[in-house]
């Protein structure tokens, strides 16, 4: 009888150990990404709410980040059922930006940055999920890559979000859908740096970053820029592929030059 109760106790201990260990997984998932290539299957935050909760203590905290800027979140736009811009020669924006991302990633890693991609393959995360990937990082900037349908061939433009209307909220919380608001100044500084390097490489490109109401940038709680390259209407895809090293180098050098300017804005409250 005693032997039976001992076996029962032992099995109960084993069972509890089995059930307790999976419950630790979510808290592990909340840790900031430390690897250089996190799998999209284990995103740091997969929902706006989750990311918002996670970022309350980090990007809007009063204290500066101890390690400063060290992560670049790279967003190859579109994907999955959304091909983005399409050229007459069958060129798809979603495919080209993924190829560009490989080169941009390599250039950033050479500059010492950790790179987190919002998609690795032909998936189409929502705008909010892409922003959530960035918002869950500490000390990060966000770069979304695009290829346009129009514009002078062989040029590249950087966009930062247009001014967002101020929020009337007595508790000082930033609404999730305007997460970019406190970062607009930093985004402009970062955008101007990258655009400067692009203008040196690609003649006819503007000298400074431009503003536009880019949906992807609005919900991103980090210095965030969109880089758009012209265009999918090239006769030969090789013309676009030839631009990739220059674009990668400009983004990497821009991020490195921006590093000393990176100071987390002080905002009471956080995201709501």
């Amino acid at each position, binding site marked *: 009888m005693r032997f039976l109760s001992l076996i029962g106790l032992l099995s109960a201990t084993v069972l509890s150990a089995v059930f307790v260990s999976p419950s630790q997984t979510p808290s592990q998932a909340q840790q900031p990404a430390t690897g250089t290539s996190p799998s999209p299957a284990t995103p740091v935050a997969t929902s706006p709410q989750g990311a918002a909760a996670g970022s309350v203590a980090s990007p809007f905290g009063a204290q500066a980040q101890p390690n400063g800027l060290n992560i670049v979140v790279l967003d190859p736009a579109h994907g999955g059922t959304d091909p983005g811009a399409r050229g007459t020669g069958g060129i798809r924006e979603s495919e080209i930006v993924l190829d560009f991302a490989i080169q941009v990633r390599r250039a950033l890693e050479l500059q010492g940055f950790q790179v987190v991609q919002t998609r690795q393959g032909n998936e189409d995360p929502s705008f909010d999920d892409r922003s959530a990937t960035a918002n869950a990082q500490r000390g990060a900037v966000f770069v979304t890559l695009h290829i346009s349908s*129009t514009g002078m061939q062989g040029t590249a433009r950087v966009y930062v979000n247009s001014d967002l209307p101020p929020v009337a909220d007595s508790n000082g919380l930033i609404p999730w859908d305007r997460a970019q608001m406190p970062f607009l100044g930093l985004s402009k500084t970062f955008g101007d740096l990258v655009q400067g390097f692009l203008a040196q490489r690609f003649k006819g490109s503007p000298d400074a970053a431009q503003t536009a109401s880019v949906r992807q940038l609005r919900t991103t709680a980090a210095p965030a820029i969109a880089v758009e390259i012209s265009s999918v209407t090239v006769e030969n895809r090789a013309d676009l592929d030839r631009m990739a090293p220059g674009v990668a180098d400009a983004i990497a050098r821009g991020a490195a030059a921006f590093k000393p300017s990176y100071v987390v804005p002080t905002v009471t409250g956080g995201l709501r």
Partner: protein
Amino acid sequence: MTPRWKFLFVSGFIFALLAAAIYFPILRRRVKRAAKMQQQSEEQARRELAQPITINPGDPRVKARVFWASDTIDSTLVPVTVELPLSRDPVLRSKQVLNTLLAGPVDAELRTLPPDALLLAFYLLPDGTAIADFSEALATSVPSGIVSEQLAVNSITRTLEANVPQVQRLKILIHGQEVETLAGHLDLTGTFVVSTKPASPAPASAALTPDKTPGKLAQPERKP
């Protein structure tokens, strides 16, 4: 089979073949005509929905500034002066200038909006917020990209700014619905700034009501 039956069968077969040879072209023409009629009725329905603005000859002819793409500087807008009879009512006036913008310039290459896009409705709220409702073609036919989508929206806002001082902000709807982006990039969930100047008082007759057409959004009358 007796020769009589064979004769009957062959003549029946030849008769059926002749009848089919005569009837099939007629049937084909009928199907084509029906398809054309259906296409015309769809187009008619779209046009009726869009309610084209009738030009009132009594309206004063003014030099309207309409913003289309520049033929010299890439991805920029230039104002083109077009002499039009424009209403004093800000809603009708907005519809008139936007329909002119949609009709496009002489050089079709300089269009900023798709040729099949239509303005379905236009409202103006008392605070100067305008709501322009476009057909789905605006979202589906505009070239996808930040630069092209911004050029499309800027041509709308700058044309309104130049011709309708009462409009301060613009909200764009697609087929009566709020959409997240125009064609995958430009954010349509908010409003676009049209003018930062204070709105000039509207003519008393206009009273900033959205439209005179029944069934349109009407603003509640405010009594002092």
